[in-house]
């Protein structure tokens, strides 16, 4: 072992001494200005070996542009990006040997069936056998005999997933990989990602949903208007996250009484009360016990909300 390093365990201010992490992917000062404030500006971050890195941002924030640079589709105008020490533009073909990619938008050769496309890709990549293809097809219950043109969005997404994973690459770049998948398949995909994580794969996963990233990633970068807003561990983001609950009571009277209990109430409408909780969920539970509660739900929070909470409402 070389020098030992302090390893961030994912909890705030908690480090362990261990082997130095190897940066698989390094982005430095990456800039591409499309004008009118669109593009990416001075992005810098790195992804360590064996890490699942979430890349979060609303639509149009610059996630795909960054990924296109990593894939060697775009030449950096300013700054650089490297994977395994190799330049993403100059050494793109070498990098691709050990990389799997799910594009943000699926476009295939429409006249092929799924099976024809997968075997084309396997041969095109010069794979010796079909790799993990069959296992992945079974896992995602994909009927590969259908023409790609006739496939639904979800089916196309599955073909994309199989293509990205079938050659068992060490690095995976996944651009909104679960879009179009139904909830069952989304969770199968997350299982797959967690398995790959256990096998030591390095994964960059972009998303516009915090929940998706929350279940899989170690660290997240949040990108906003083309600029890196934050890079932090998922746990730190979660700790800062303010949970929101909607409690439905039997009557409007009990709702207004409930709202007067000294909890952080953000809205009351008819018999429904919206409560925000930072840390102390027990207090809410004990209050709920004393009231005729008929339902409780926790609506999904948008990335924007989480972001605002993380920065204490400072949107600038």
């Amino acid at each position, binding site marked *: 072992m070389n020098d030992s390093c302090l390893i961030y365990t994912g909890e705030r201010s908690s480090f362990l001494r261990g082997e130095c992490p190897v940066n698989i992917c390094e982005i430095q000062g990456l800039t591409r200005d499309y004008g009118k404030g669109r593009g990416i500006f001075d992005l810098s971050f790195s992804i360590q070996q064996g890490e699942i890195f979430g890349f979060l941002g609303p639509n149009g924030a610059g996630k795909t542009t960054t990924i*296109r640079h990593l*894939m*060697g*589709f*775009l*030449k950096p105008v300013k700054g650089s990006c490297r994977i395994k020490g190799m330049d993403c533009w100059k050494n*793109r*073909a*070498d990098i*691709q*040997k050990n*990389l799997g*990619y799910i*594009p943000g*938008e*699926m*476009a*295939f*050769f429409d006249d092929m069936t799924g099976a024809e496309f997968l075997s*084309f*890709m396997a*041969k*095109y*990549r*010069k794979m010796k056998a079909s790799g993990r293809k069959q296992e992945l097809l079974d896992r995602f219950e994909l009927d590969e005999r259908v023409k790609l043109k006739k496939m639904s969005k979800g089916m196309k997404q599955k073909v994309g997933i199989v*293509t990205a994973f079938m050659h068992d690459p060490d690095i995976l770049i996944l651009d909104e990989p679960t879009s179009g998948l139904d909830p069952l398949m989304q969770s199968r995909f997350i299982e797959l990602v967690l398995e790959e994580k256990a096998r030591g794969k390095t994964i960059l996963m972009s998303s516009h949903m915090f929940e998706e990233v929350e279940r899989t990633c170690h660290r997240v970068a949040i990108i906003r208007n083309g600029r890196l807003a934050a890079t932090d561990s998922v746990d730190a983001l979660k700790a800062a996250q303010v949970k929101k609950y909607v409690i439905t009571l039997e009557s409007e009277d009990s709702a207004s009484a409930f709202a007067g209990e000294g909890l952080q109430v953000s809205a009351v409408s008819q018999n429904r009360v919206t409560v925000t909780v930072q840390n102390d969920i027990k207090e809410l539970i004990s209050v709920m016990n004393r009231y005729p509660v008929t339902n409780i739900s926790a609506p999904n929070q948008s990335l924007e909300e989480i972001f605002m909470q993380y920065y204490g409402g400072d949107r600038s």
Partner: protein
Amino acid sequence: MMNWTLYKRGMQGIWKMLVIFCAVLTMYFTIIVSMFDPALGSVLDEFAKAMPDLMAVVGMTPASGELVSFMAAYLYGFLMLVFPMVFSILSANKLIARHVDRGSMTYLVAAPVRRTTVAFTQMKVMGTGLFALVFYASMLGIVTCELSFPGELAVGTFLLLNAGVLCLQLFIGGICFLSSCFFNDSKYAVGVGAGIPALGFIIQMMANAGKELENAKYATFFTLFDSDGIIAGEAGAYAGMAVLFIGAVALFAAAIAVFSKKDLHI
């Protein structure tokens, strides 16, 4: 430099088009050759005498009573210029620009295959198609002539004429392919890839038509393919062929370089 899987895929994509083009060529070749009459001059020559201007526009001017000149005038003045040109326009777009436009190029470049290999392979597909078309036309010409007029066709000269047409078509193909590699948008790729050769062809038609417009021939690369000169064995005609061929090589090389250096927004 070449990916066989992609090459096979490309050939699958163009063979139907090739079959249709070959079928149409077969029809024209048999009809036109049957109009040749070694003793009396042909029916077409009568047309040419009756309507010299119109026939001249499409390059149909009888040179001499020989079969090879007859074919050069009536098949290699229009048909063999336009048909492979249309093939080039369609296939060049299909092989590169359409993949970039629709996004399916993603899968070709998100693999351990160099972009130069992708472009080189697609170029080979197009080259194979053009070669197949001209080769088929050569064989077709020889066979139809031998069946109708045994021994009349100067086969060597005819093959040279086909080599000339191949050089011209490779040059046109180079323009289409460069345009396909340059533009990210299919409609611009086709617009420019079809526009430049079409303009060249129209200028040639104008130059053929009128004496006052004759100098227009210096404004089009079609002039470099001089079928009468090739048949007469003129050095200038051979030089034209060589220029076209070298030009084609340069155009394809530029196309590959452009494709491997450009930003792909896919």
